């Protein structure tokens, strides 16, 4: 079976989790990345879920929401949401995953509404959930989203989850205590934010630097050392396909 973009993204996302880290996991691809990390290089990573669930071992079953009963059975802590958000605000949460409908060159994310006037949106999006909190307060932010010109925009219509704002020391000036996007993983490539602006680090095997640039809404900078994203190992593919056999999350072209 051909390797899907979702599988490449999950494999890369898993690499972003170091052993022993405390990570806000979320659903969909990040959840599967957490499963992969736990079963490979990060056996001591801890997963936090916004509704209050803390897990040492990932749920044995594929989840559709973080509140599914298998995600609660075997958790080490059922906390209150504010308990986990409090740890996040303290600065003891190493990383968090979020997705987004739109992202700009400085890693600011919009999951609230498309259109100039939030009160009269062209497209109403679901909103922040805990995403804006993770973007504000986690030590590292890991962003995962589909790649196309309408989503990677010069400027987003609404900053739901703050990235690096307008660059420079914007986060410090705003009063954000830490954090910001560490990596953006799209269906086409992997991007870092060395000086607050997204720079292409690698394109996936099924894509190219040119395709990444062509599908980005701002003049995209590519690293001089730009390379091909490491493909998922056979072991990692086996874990992904064992956990999401139907490809509900990893083959929906997300």
């Amino acid at each position: 079976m051909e390797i899907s973009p979702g599988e490449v993204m999950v494999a890369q996302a898993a690499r972003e989790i170091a052993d022993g880290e405390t990570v806000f996991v979320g659903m969909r691809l990040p959840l599967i990345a957490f499963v992969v990390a736990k079963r490979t290089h990060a056996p001591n990573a801890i997963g936090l879920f916004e509704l209050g669930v803390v897990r040492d071992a990932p749920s044995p079953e594929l989840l559709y929401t973080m509140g599914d009963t298998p995600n609660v059975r075997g958790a080490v802590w059922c906390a209150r949401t504010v308990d986990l958000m409090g740890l996040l605000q303290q600065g003891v949460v190493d990383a968090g995953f979020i997705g987004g409908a739109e992202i700009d060159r400085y890693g600011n994310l919009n999951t609230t509404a498309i259109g100039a006037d939030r009160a009269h949106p062209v497209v109403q999006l679901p909103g922040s959930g805990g995403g804006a909190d993770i973007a504000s307060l986690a030590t590292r932010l890991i962003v995962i989203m589909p790649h196309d010109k309408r989503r990677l925009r010069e400027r987003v219509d609404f900053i739901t989850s703050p990235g690096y704002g307008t660059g420079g020391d914007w986060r410090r000036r705003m009063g954000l205590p830490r954090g910001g996007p560490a990596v953006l993983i799209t269906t086409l490539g992997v991007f870092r934010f060395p000086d607050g602006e997204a720079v292409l680090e690698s394109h996936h095997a099924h894509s190219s630097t040119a395709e990444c640039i062509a599908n980005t809404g701002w003049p995209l900078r590519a690293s001089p050392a730009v390379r091909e994203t490491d493909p998922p190992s056979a072991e990692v593919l086996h874990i992904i396909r064992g956990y999401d056999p139907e490809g509900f999350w990893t083959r929906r072209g997300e």
Partner: protein
Amino acid sequence: MSPRSPRSASRTTRGSKHIPDQRTSLHDAIAAHVPDGSSVAIGCALEPAIPFAAVHELIRQRRVDLELIGPISDIAFDMLIGAGCVATVHAAWVGNVSAGLAHCYRRATEQAVPRAIRVRDHSNFTMGLSLLAGALGAPYIPTRTLLGSDIPAANGTFIAATSPLDDSPLLLIPAITPDVTILACQRADMDGNAHQWGPWGVSQEAALAARNVIILADEIVDRSVIASDPNRTICPATKVAAVVEVAGACHPSPLQGRYRRDHEFFHDYHRSTRDVEGFERWIAEWVTGLPDHATYLRKLGDRWPKLREAGVPAAETRF
């Protein structure tokens, strides 16, 4: 919290006196304690334990001008918005968690169909802090989340401030005190002392912050069951205005140790409600066309028993 809330609250608040047996029917609980214009917290455990039976009853009773409060209530808010019950939404996320966007919410904000609604954007943390402030009887709680986000401006109630400790920027999140919080739980006694296990989300803060609480218990049990394990109590009877025994009250959302989430039901709803006609057909078929929740469960046929879970027993604890 809405201009109408004090009035509606004064019509319905239980006051601080403890009233022993508060059992009633779902119809009467909603009729007595959730007047038009009420601010109502629903789905405060986020994805699980959403009291859909109460959501359906609000729609059957054609409530209007409700002010909804909840971080992520899956499709509960979308249904109420589509049915025209809602004036304002205070939420961090409104959608269909496993299927995507919420069509009724989109129609309301994009096209004012069936009516325009006011949205007060939150994050999960600010939703939790506003209810925690309400529970503490504090006017607000300060935070550093959302500094630099456009959410504070869109919400319109947060106050930008600097810390008197070090002059650093802060957002002050004002207390939210719902007229009524509707909680689903596994078991409660007839006074309203409620045991909930599994994720609490912001449920306890929402219950303690509210003027009144309506408890939908999967099972009403003897006081001695509650009193055998007081750490499980999520809400004390002193806040409760009505206790209703409603089996399966949370379907299609899950209730830990009782039944699983009905994913396909959420996905059906998503497919069926893409246009207004589809939503109206769906709501007639599953809500307004049914007299009560027992009929709703029967209509699910053998899909419902298949969702039931025996659960795994908690390790013994002795008091």
